[in-house]
C-alpha cells in the first residue's frame, strides 16, 4: 500500500511495488513523482528524512537527507540584514540549502532497495512529460505564492500559465523537469552534485546573492542514523532524531501520558487546554536545545526522561494559561523549518515513512535555468538569532519539525505516520496518535479530526490556532482560560497534510489514511 499527498504519486509507487520492488523502492518512486505532481512542496531541490522498517531483520533505521548550509554560512548572515532579514531567509539565494533529496533517495536504494534509481524515477519522468490536471490545492497554492514565483522565476516559468497562476482543471506539463530527471536517471546523482546540474544550481543561487559553491554540492552526503525510541501507553514509537523533531513529538506524548486524556473526552476544552500548554513548554525546549547534532549537543535523554515529562505535566494549571514558558534547566549541558509526507508498506512487511520538503510552498521560487525544479528555502529554519543551538553556521543542517514515525504494539508494526506542516508537524502527529490510542478513533477519523496548535516564542505565549469545527462553547471555555484564539479554515493546510497506514492484525486489514487538507490519497493491491 502507498499513501501520499497526490493520487498520481501513489500510482507511481504502486507501479514499482507491482513490478516486484520493495517498500524502499516504492517510497523513492513516490517521492520522485511528488516532485512532479506536488512540485510546490518537495523535490530534488530540497531534502528530508525517511524512516525505514526492515521486517526480516526487525530493524528500524533512519536516512537523514536534510539540506545543509553552505560552508561560507555564518551566524550573523540573517541578523545583519536587520528588517530585511525575512527576505534573505526566504527568497534570496541565502535561503537555499544544499539539497539532499537525491543523495537520500540514492543512499536508501543502495542500502535497502532492490531497484536502480533510474528504474524508480521512470514513473515521475513519464508524469512530467505527459502532464496532469491541476487540482484545487495546486491552483490555490500557486495563486498564494504568485508574487514569489513572479519575482524569482519570471512570467515565462513553467510554474505559471502564460504568466498567471494555474486554475483548477488546467493541464500542467513540465518537460524541463522531465529532461532533468532523465539526465539524472542516465548519469546518476553525480550529474546533480558534481556535473552540469550542479553548475546551474550554483549559478542560480549566486545570481540571487547566495553563498553556495560547487564544493558545497560535491561534498553533500546523506547519512544513515539510529532512530529515536519512545513509549506511549504501552506502544513503542520509532521516529527521527535531531535535527528532526521526533524528540519533541515524544516529549508531548510523554507529558500527555500523565493525564487521563480519554476521560477528559475528545475535543474537550480540558484536553485542548492541557495539550496546548504542553506544546508551549515543548517549544521552549525546542528553541533552547534543538540543533544539528553534528555541531551541538542535544540533551535527548534528559528531555525524554519521565522526570522531565512529570515536571512539565505538573507545571500546567487546569485553571488558566501559564503566560511564561521557560525551557527546562539542564545542568552539564554543553552548548556548542511546507513539505510532504508518504507512507509505504510492501507485502513482506517492510515499511517507509518519508517526509521531504523544499520548506515554504514553492520554496525559494528560484529555479536553476532550464531544469524545471524549485530550490528550497530551508535555511529559513535556522533560528532568528546569531547564537544558540540552531544559529546559522557553516555546513549545518537547520532544525526541522519533521517527525515521520512508526508505532509498534505488542512488538508488531501498527502505524506508519507523518505529516508536512512546518512547526505544526509534531504537534499534529501527537494529536493523531492520541486520537487513535486514547480516543479510539480510526486512522481516517484521527487524521480528519479538527486540529489545534500553539507554541511559545522567547518564553512568551502565542495564540491558539483552531479549526472552527470545534464547538463554539469549547472555544469560549478556552478563551476563559486565557488562550487568545485564532480561527483558521475548517480543514486548513496550515495544520499539515498527514498520511498514514494502520495495520489491523485482528481483522487482517491494512488501512490507509490520507488527509483531505491536501490532495491525500492511498491505495493498495
Amino acid at each position: 500500500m502507498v499513501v501520499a499527498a497526490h493520487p498520481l504519486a501513489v500510482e507511481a509507487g504502486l507501479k514499482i511495488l507491482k513490478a516486484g520492488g520493495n517498500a524502499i523502492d516504492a517510497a523513492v518512486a513516490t517521492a520522485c513523482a511528488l516532485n512532479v505532481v506536488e512540485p510546490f512542496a518537495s523535490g530534488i531541490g530540497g531534502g528530508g528524512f525517511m524512516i525505514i522498517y526492515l521486517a526480516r531483520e526487525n530493524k528500524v533505521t533512519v536516512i537523514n537527507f536534510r539540506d545543509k548550509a553552505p560552508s561560507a554560512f555564518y551566524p550573523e548572515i540573517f541578523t545583519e540584514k536587520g528588517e530585511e532579514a525575512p527576505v534573505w531567509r526566504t527568497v534570496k539565494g541565502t535561503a537555499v540549502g544544499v539539497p539532499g533529496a537525491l543523495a537520500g533517495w540514492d543512499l536508501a536504494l543502495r542500502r535497502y532497495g532492490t531497484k536502480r534509481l533510474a528504474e524508480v524515477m521512470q514513473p515521475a519522468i513519464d508524469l512530467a512529460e505527459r502532464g496532469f490536471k491541476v487540482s484545487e490545492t495546486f491552483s490555490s497554492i500557486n495563486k498564494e505564492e504568485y508574487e514569489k514565483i513572479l519575482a524569482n522565476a519570471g512570467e515565462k516559468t513553467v510554474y505559471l500559465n502564460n504568466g498567471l497562476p494555474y486554475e483548477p482543471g488546467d493541464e500542467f506539463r513540465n518537460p524541463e523537469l522531465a529532461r532533468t530527471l532523465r539526465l539524472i536517471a542516465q548519469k546518476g546523482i553525480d550529474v546533480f552534485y558534481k556535473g552540469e546540474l550542479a553548475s546551474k544550481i550554483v549559478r542560480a543561487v549566486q545570481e540571487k546573492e547566495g553563498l553556495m559553491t560547487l564544493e558545497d554540492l560535491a561534498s553533500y552526503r546523506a547519512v544513515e542514523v539510529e532512530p529515536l525510541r519512545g513509549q506511549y501507553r504501552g506502544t513503542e514509537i520509532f521516529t527521527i532524531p535531531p535535527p528532526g523533531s521526533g524528540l519533541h513529538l515524544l516529549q508531548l506524548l510523554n507529558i500527555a501520558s500523565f493525564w487521563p486524556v480519554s476521560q477528559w473526552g475528545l475535543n474537550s476544552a480540558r484536553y485542548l487546554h492541557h495539550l496546548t500548554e504542553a506544546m508551549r513548554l515543548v517549544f521552549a525546549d525546542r528553541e533552547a536545545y534543538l540543533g544539528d547534532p553534528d555541531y551541538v549537543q542535544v540533551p535527548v535523554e534528559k528531555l525524554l526522561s519521565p522526570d522531565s515529562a512529570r515536571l512539565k505535566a505538573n507545571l500546567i494549571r487546569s485553571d488558566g494559561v501559564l503566560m511564561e514558558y521557560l525551557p527546562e534547566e539542564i545542568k552539564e549541558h554543553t552548548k556548542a523549518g511546507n513539505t510532504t509526507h508518504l507512507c509505504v508498506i510492501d507485502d513482506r512487511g517492510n515499511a517507509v515513512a518519508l517526509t521531504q520538503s523544499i520548506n515554504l510552498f514553492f520554496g525559494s521560487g528560484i529555479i536553476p535555468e532550464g531544469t524545471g525544479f524549485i530550490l528550497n528555502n530551508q535555511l529559513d529554519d535556522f533560528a532568528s538569532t546569531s547564537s544558540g543551538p540552531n544559529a546559522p553556521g557553516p555546513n549545518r543542517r537547520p532544525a526541522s519539525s519533521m517527525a515521520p514515525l512508526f508505532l509498534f504494539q505488542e512488538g508488531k508494526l501498527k502505524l506508519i505516520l507523518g505529516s508536512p506542516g512546518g512547526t505544526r508537524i509534531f504537534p499534529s502527529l501527537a494529536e493523531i496518535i492520541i486520537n487513535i490510542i486514547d480516543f479510539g478513533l480510526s486512522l481516517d477519523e484521527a487524521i480528519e479530526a479538527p486540529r489545534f496548535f500553539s507554541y511559545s516564542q522567547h518564553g512568551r505565549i502565542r495564540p491558539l490556532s483552531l479549526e472552527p469545527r470545534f464547538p463554539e462553547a469549547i472555544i469560549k471555555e478556552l478563551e476563559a482560560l486565557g488562550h487568545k484564539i485564532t480561527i483558521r479554515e475548517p480543514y486548513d493546510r496550515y495544520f499539515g497534510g498527514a498520511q498514514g497506514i494502520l495495520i489491523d492484525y485482528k481483522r487482517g486489514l491494512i488501512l490507509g489514511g490520507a488527509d483531505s487538507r491536501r490532495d491525500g490519497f492511498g491505495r493498495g493491491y
Partner: protein
Amino acid sequence: MQGKKALSISLIFIFWLFISAQSNLPKFSSPALITSAGQNAEVQMVAVLAKRAGIEHNLNKLATAQDLAGFKSLLLVLGASMKGLGAAGLDLNKEMERVRGLLKGAEEKNIPILCLHLGGEERRGAQSDEFIKACLPAARMVIVVKSGNKDGLFTRLCQEKGIPLIEIERTTEALEPLKNAFAQ
C-alpha cells in the same frame, strides 16, 4: 412556486445587470492605484493584468488615503489572507482600519473605485466577507470570479446599490473588462 418566481426575478435582474454592464459601464482613468483589502495574493495578479491592459498603475500593498494623491482610480482587490496579513505585520482590525481610511479618502477626492474579487470560493469566508461588505457599497464597478459569488453575495450587494457586476469564469478573463473600463 414562490421559489420559481423569485428565481425568475433574480435571473432577469442578473440579465439586466449584464446588459447594463455591457452598454453603460462606468469609465475609469489612469493612473490607477492598486491595493488589496485583506492582503490577498490576487492583488499581484491584478497588477500583471493592469500592465497587460496598458493601464498606468502603481501597486502599493499598504496604501493609505495619503497615497491616493495623483491617482485617478482605485483598484481594490478583495479578500483576506491570513498569510498575507501575517507577512505585512497586520491583523484584521488594522487592515480594516487601513481600508476604511482608503475608502474615505477616495470618496473625499472623488476617485472612483473598481473592486475585484479573483480568489473564487476559497477567498470567501467570514474574514473575507467583512472586507467585501465594507468595500462593495463604495464601488463604481465590480468584477468577480464566478465561483466566489456562488451564494449570490456580490449579486445582492451590487443589486442594492445599482452597481454593475461583471462575472468571469477565470482570473485571466478579468483582462477584457479591465481594458474596457480604462478605454478612452
